């Protein structure tokens, strides 16, 4: 990376965003890719020098994240989602045919250097399955045909525009600069939201009282993501109220509302804020977890695309409450247009005096930095996130100390999910009692349910906690083709699966737990009777193997082994004893590993054997899968969407 003076200035400005320079490693690596297309050894050395690190330390970080490339990629880098849901709905066919069409393998580049292709994991767009990404822009609801047209258009130099993104597809290098935090000014282009995102809102607007659009209420407005649009819908009123309260009163209000974390664990948000030591003369940090990578989870991404300001307003309130002067949004790197929108919203909020010094003249200062990840599911785990944000490999930390005591830069830190934070302005505006009056006894308020898979109309539904899957499927127009529901995840792939026995359990923290799973992220991935559960579980397990951070033995080695056994079982190889072996291995992995990722890896296996042992055995009996993958795909035999 030969550096011009202006490159040097840009790199210095990236470093200056952070309280500690090492945090700049990730954006600097993105910046390096914007120059060279991939991370060259020279750029590793340049970055090491700039940050006063050894090159080994920088390359240790660079090799952890999949978005940093070791060699050239195409001008247009195409990622086909082949995580379970997309794969089953047609992603596998798309990926296979694109490879053939382009004459390249996974991670290959066409000879003209125009297109490269890679299979990717869940990209937080499951309600748009099958999903293809190009330079990390969304191409929703793809078919084999549309994907081929897309790559052809790229090779002709005139790529088809993204579905939810800018009017013209930026190049790989251009978008790498965006990921480095350099605003390209394209945030205002493109739709606020696609149809599935709007589904619940439309149903509510047509009079359905089971749904309570609050975060999603303005999604259908063309400019919902702008400062003006947000203000028109009553935005930034809550901070006026909050800044007139004492920080402790704000924490109390959030406690009283009963809001629980929406990132998966459901920990009471107000209580978390209350753990931050006060009067300790240390910096405090407020960190938003926008890494959304749990397979099936696709709520935060459309929220930030359509309504980024509600998140910013929530951050201002939360930071004020915990006395933080510095906040970060850690967003996954594979969602370019969302990054653009959030970046623009932050800049607009600064211009409007909502961020920076002396906010609204109330003497409260807050800096907010958008930190872009680089492809690592584990960075959604809050301590791995903090290590990643500090410029290390994103591996979980030992706890205690918990982030509330020693989080970012070993200072008291709150980490909250996007939806949790975005829920706060409404609580301040409408009062804790209003929020607490919604939902169920211990699971209060409204939340985002994401329905994907074999329903007629997948999409987002904002409803009080406690709604049932039966009600939601009903709103989604029923199962596709009137098929029978076979299995589903209540809260992402890490939560044990359910079957059609569980259609009527209340989808709140207690209800789902009582039935043996977890509410998680309310990512409801629906699979009908045409789906092979063994194939689904194998694919999820491959995901966990790919995403295991490698720190601890059971997860690192265990997922490696699990995949091999499941591959055999899917191919009908093995014997009945292998199921016991599989369960025993899961017992040696779950609860024995360093973090919850490994527990998640074991969940689909244990729960699927619990409900579908017969199906596993059937595979062994017939020496292969009794299922026809084409039957569970949305694509017809000629690759077109039905």
């Amino acid at each position, binding site marked *: 990376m030969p550096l011009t003076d202006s490159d040097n200035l840009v790199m210095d400005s990236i470093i200056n965003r952070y309280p500690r320079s090492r945090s700049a490693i990730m954006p600097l690596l993105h910046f390096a890719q914007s120059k060279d297309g991939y991370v060259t050894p020279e750029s590793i050395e340049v970055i090491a020098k700039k940050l006063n690190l050894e090159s080994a330390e920088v390359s240790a970080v660079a090799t952890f994240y999949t978005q940093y490339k070791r060699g050239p990629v195409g001008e247009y880098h195409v990622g086909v989602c082949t995580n379970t849901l997309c794969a089953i709905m047609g992603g596998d066919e798309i990926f296979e045919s694109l490879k053939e069409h382009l004459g390249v393998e996974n991670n290959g580049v066409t000879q003209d250097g125009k297109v490269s292709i890679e299979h990717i994991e869940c990209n937080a767009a499951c309600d748009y399955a099958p999903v293809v990404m190009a330079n990390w822009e969304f191409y929703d609801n793809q078919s084999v045909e549309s994907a081929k047209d897309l790559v052809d258009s790229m090779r002709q130099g005139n790529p088809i525009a993204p579905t939810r993104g800018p009017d013209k597809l930026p190049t790989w290098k251009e978008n790498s600069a965006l990921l480095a935090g350099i605003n390209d000014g394209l945030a205002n282009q493109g739709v606020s939201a696609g149809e599935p995102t709007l589904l619940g809102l439309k149903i509510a607007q047509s009079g359905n009282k089971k749904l309570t659009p609050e975060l999603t209420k303005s999604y259908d407005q063309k400019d919902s993501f702008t400062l003006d649009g947000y203000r028109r819908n009553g935005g930034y009123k809550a901070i006026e109220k909050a800044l007139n309260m004492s920080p402790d009163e704000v924490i109390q209000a959030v406690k009283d509302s009963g809001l629980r974390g929406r990132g998966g664990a459901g920990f009471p948000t107000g209580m978390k804020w209350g753990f931050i030591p006060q009067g300790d003369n240390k910096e405090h940090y407020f960190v938003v977890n926008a890494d959304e990578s749990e397979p099936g989870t696709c709520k935060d991404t459309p929220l930030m695309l359509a309504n980024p300001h509600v998140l910013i307003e929530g951050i201002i309130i939360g930071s004020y409450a915990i006395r933080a002067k510095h906040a970060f949004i850690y967003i996954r790197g594979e969602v370019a247009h969302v990054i653009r929108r959030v970046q623009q919203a932050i800049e607009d909020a600064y211009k409007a005096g909502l961020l920076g010094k002396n906010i609204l003249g109330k003497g409260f200062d807050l800096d907010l930095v958008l930190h872009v990840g680089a492809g690592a599911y584990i960075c959604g785990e809050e301590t791995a996130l903090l290590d990643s944000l500090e410029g290390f490999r994103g591996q979980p930390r*030992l706890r205690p100390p918990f982030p509330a005591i020693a989080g970012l830069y070993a200072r008291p830190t709150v980490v909250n999910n996007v939806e949790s934070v975005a829920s706060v302005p409404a609580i301040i505006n409408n009062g804790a009692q209003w929020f607490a009056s919604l939902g169920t006894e211990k699971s209060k308020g409204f939340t985002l349910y994401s329905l994907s898979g074999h329903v007629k109309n997948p999409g987002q539904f904002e409803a009080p906690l406690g709604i049932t899957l039966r009600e939601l499927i009903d709103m989604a127009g029923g199962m596709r083709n009137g098929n029978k529901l076979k299995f589903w995840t209540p809260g992402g792939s890490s939560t044990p699966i359910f079957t059609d026995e569980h259609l009527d359990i209340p989808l709140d923290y207690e209800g789902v737990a009582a039935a043996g799973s977890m509410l998680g992220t309310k990512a409801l991935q629906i699979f009908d009777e045409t789906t092979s559960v063994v194939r689904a579980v194998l694919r999820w397990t491959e995901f966990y193997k790919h995403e295991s951070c490698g720190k601890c033995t059971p997860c690192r080695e*265990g997922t490696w082994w699990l995949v091999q056994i499941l591959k055999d079982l899917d191919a009908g190889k093995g014997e009945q004893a292998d199921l016991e072996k599989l369960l025993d291995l899961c017992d040696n992995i779950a*609860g*024995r590993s360093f973090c919850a990722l490994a527990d998640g890896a074991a969940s689909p296996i244990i729960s699927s054997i619990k409900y579908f042992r017969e199906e596993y055995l059937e595979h062994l009996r017939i020496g292969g899968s009794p299922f026809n993958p084409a039957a569970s795909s949305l694509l017809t035999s000629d690759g077109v969407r039905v």
Partner: protein
Amino acid sequence: MSTQEITTETAVEMITITIDGFEVSVPKGTLVIRAAEKLGIQIPRFCDHPLLDPVGACRQCLVEIEVNGRKFPKPQASCTIPVEPGMIVNTQLTSAVADKAQQGVMELLLINHPLDCPVCDKGGECPLQNQAMSNGREESRFEGTKRTFEKPINISSQVLLDRERCILCARCTRFSEQIAGDPFITLNERGALQQVGIYEKEPFESYFSGNTVQICPVGALTGASYRFRARPFDLISTPSACEHCASGCDMRTDVRRGKTLRRLAGDDAAVNEEWNCDKGRWAFKYVNAKDRITTPLIRDESGQLREASWPEALALAAKGLKENRSAVLVGGRATLEDAYGYSKFARIALNTNDIDFRSRVTSKEEKNFLASHVVGTQINYKDLDRADHVLLLGFEAEEESPIVFLRLYKQVKKRELKITAVAPFASRGNKKLKAELVSTPAGNEASAISKISNLSNKSVILIGERLSESTGAISAAVALAANSGAKLAWIPRRAGERGALEAGALSNLLPGARPVSDNAARVDLQAAWGVSSLPSNPGLDSDEIIKEVEKGNIGALLVGGVDPLDISPDYQAIMEKAFIVSLEIRQSAVTQIADVVLPVAAVVEKSGTFINWESRARYFEAAVPDSLTRSDVRILSMLADEMESSINLPTVSSARDEFNSLGTWHKRESFTPVSVESTKIANGKANLCSWRLLLDSGSMQDGENNLAGTAHPSVAIISKSRADSLGVSNGDQIKISTPRGEIALACQIDSIDEESVWVPRNSINSKVIESLGITSGEVSVVRA
């Protein structure tokens, strides 16, 4: 007990917990795994290391834990959990859950392990192999494909990495980062592909890299020199002391059939903890060098050295020493017992105080300082642990006393210990220590030191042997210590200097800190030695001795382990005029000109004691037991007998016992400060500064090319403005010269004091004394 830092000064709170039904009380903060050790319960482990921060990565140490009746829902990693009152722990011995968890982890660790124990260097002493036997399943259920990697790769010329064997415990990477401050090896990639590695262009050239080989719990990291040489059960291990520097490491020497095959760091919590440096670990082949002297040699009529019998050689040596006025030069590498032998020999057999152990550039100021402020005093590593500020004068800790460096680094990491260094530029080591630099050209240290004002009585001033090269600097340091109350410590480079000082191998000192000038002290020693008189006039230093040889006033020299090139390029030629008796292990610049050469034992072949900078004695037995060579003191005793003035030290232990019985004299020589003279450099010239790098051309590193391959490259450091005026950039050759000669090196631009140029003192293409004739002062620098 826990090796976690537990201060003994404040009363420690003890906590009682129950493990497998047994109660044990341990200090608060102790980890469960170590509390179990105290009961003799061994919980299997890999990533845990008492001196590294806990990570909980391998998950081998899982146990069941209950606190006040509440049981953790999952087994916990006992290496990460501190004890709590009321805790009940059930290990694999009493909990089926813990036992299964451990077996499960072990099985998983082995699925991707090559199980090539029969050809693995670690075989026989491998924690994985051993614990797989004690805590693993009998048979693996894994039938799949193992992860494979290219077989061992060189991550430095000295260390090989076999990734297939690695269990990713991160001990090596944590050591490099946390202990050595050299994060050149890191974990790379992710998940099942995670692997230890270096940055492709930057090898693992840390001075401490060998420790990673030692703490690697499998055979993934191996030393190139030991690879495939031996199996542990063929080796005889002997606790030993390192002979390379004054840090004073405890070591273990492993020998097979009379040959040292490897050396490991010993475990001495007060000194080297469990670490050592790569020089101590790997520089031992010099013992078996081709030029090793095994029989006495005498110079015949034709001027050639020829083999001789011991009686013949001893008779000739005795005659030469008797017939001439003789002096003694003993290098800084002698053991305490040998140095005592030289000291006593000089006084009794030669009736002289003309003896000096400092075979390096020295001063009278230093000699006075050693006799007044150093001999007979004690200061400890613990003082560094407690210091509020450490001042480094003429001392580069990482290069010149690596374990002192590690200790300082530990305190810098742990509590941001403040460090200040007086030097012309901030070396890599001092940067790691975040030392504040008082940028000072060589020769101007005295005035720089006198300006330092922020020390307290909790501070420590570390004086390196090089401070003696700058007139007045030691005096300034002495004054600073007196004014601030700071402690003073002197850290020589060589392992034997402190012992030689205590043994009185110096012209103003008799053994046991007795000043030559103190009548009572002399009389006391006469009584102890049973002699009627001892020479009372102050003796000569090495420089003066050489001058007297040149003038013809001294006619014979007894020389033990000295390289005249460490002092001056002229000395060998001058010394040649004298009758020389040389006690040596290998051919040297002295044996070349000696009249009698008497072979002596190398450190591994003898027993003895080294006294480190703290004044801590470390005694060791011979690691190679039946060597035919003898320690210097035994030969000196025979020689004295031959001269008919017996020193009566027939064995090493008799020398040690006698020395110890002398005790330490209570009165010291007074210190006379030397006034400051700043070095002035003529316009257009540069001021030379140099020190030795840890790994360099020192003769005791001979024969170990793998180690030499990790030495830092020889470069000359100049300032940006000098580079600009010379018209050179990084890597260009420059020439540094004095009327005597020149050195040509690639330059490296750094923020060094404008006037200064730095070169390594004794590295490849950079033999400062030999080429330039000086160690500091005026030189010309031009573009080559």
